């Protein structure tokens, strides 16, 4: 249960992060990435082919040509300027959040994120 003071500090922090150029750029880049029809089509094809190939892999019927095809789709998606911009914007906001975590951690005397992050693969 969060105290009023903690809620207020949390809301202030959220407002401050939201107002950063990094967050604004990230939100814009994400919206463009999601809405672009060419990328939507690429993601759909990639997901479809990956699913089909995964099924084939279990039966041993997968060919090199099919692997190359999926690799090509993935590379095309990754190299698209909109994707590149989205990934760069994501890196920038994550770096900013990392700086924020350092500032919080310095006050509390241990790593905030390491303690507060949801449990990962190791339980």
């Amino acid at each position, binding site marked *: 249960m969060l105290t009023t003071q903690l809620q207020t500090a949390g809301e202030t922090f959220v407002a*401050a992060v939201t107002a950063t150029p990094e967050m604004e750029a990230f939100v814009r880049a994400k919206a463009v990435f999601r809405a672009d029809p060419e990328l939507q089509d690429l993601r759909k094809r990639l997901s479809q082919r990956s699913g089909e190939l995964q099924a084939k892999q279990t039966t041993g019927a997968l060919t090199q040509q099919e692997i190359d095809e999926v690799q090509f789709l993935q590379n095309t998606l990754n190299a698209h300027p909109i994707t590149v911009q989205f990934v760069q914007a994501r890196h920038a906001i994550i770096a*900013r959040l990392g700086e*924020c975590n*350092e500032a919080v951690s310095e*006050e509390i005397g241990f790593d905030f994120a390491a*303690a*507060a992050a*949801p449990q990962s693969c190791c339980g």
Partner: protein
Amino acid sequence: MHNIEKQIESGAMSLEEVAGKLGVAVVATAEYRALNAAEKRYQNDIQARELYGRFREQQRTVQLMQQLGKATPEDMEHLENLQKDIETNETLAGYFDAQEKLVALLRDLNEFISSRLNMDFAALSKPQRGCCG
């Protein structure tokens, strides 16, 4: 909210300063103070520290023996007995309880922030140490 945005835009307050204030708010909570008190108690309780040291040592031994396939029932029983001693030791039980309560609070705070940011603040900003780091 607008006030904060203006202060950041004008450079009167940095984002790191706002984050620092969040840390200050955590330090002011009952859970944080309780953990501090429990930690001091633990540091001053030689018996509790010695018991925990023996437990950790036995835990390492059992893990090593298990890896080598040589863990004996006696090794396991010794570890279980030490675990029981820890659970009934007031200082240690209080210390672990205080740790759990503070971690629960920090997770709630992270959820509060992350749901508003639409991204997981702690998961994205924690130092990367690989999967089981």
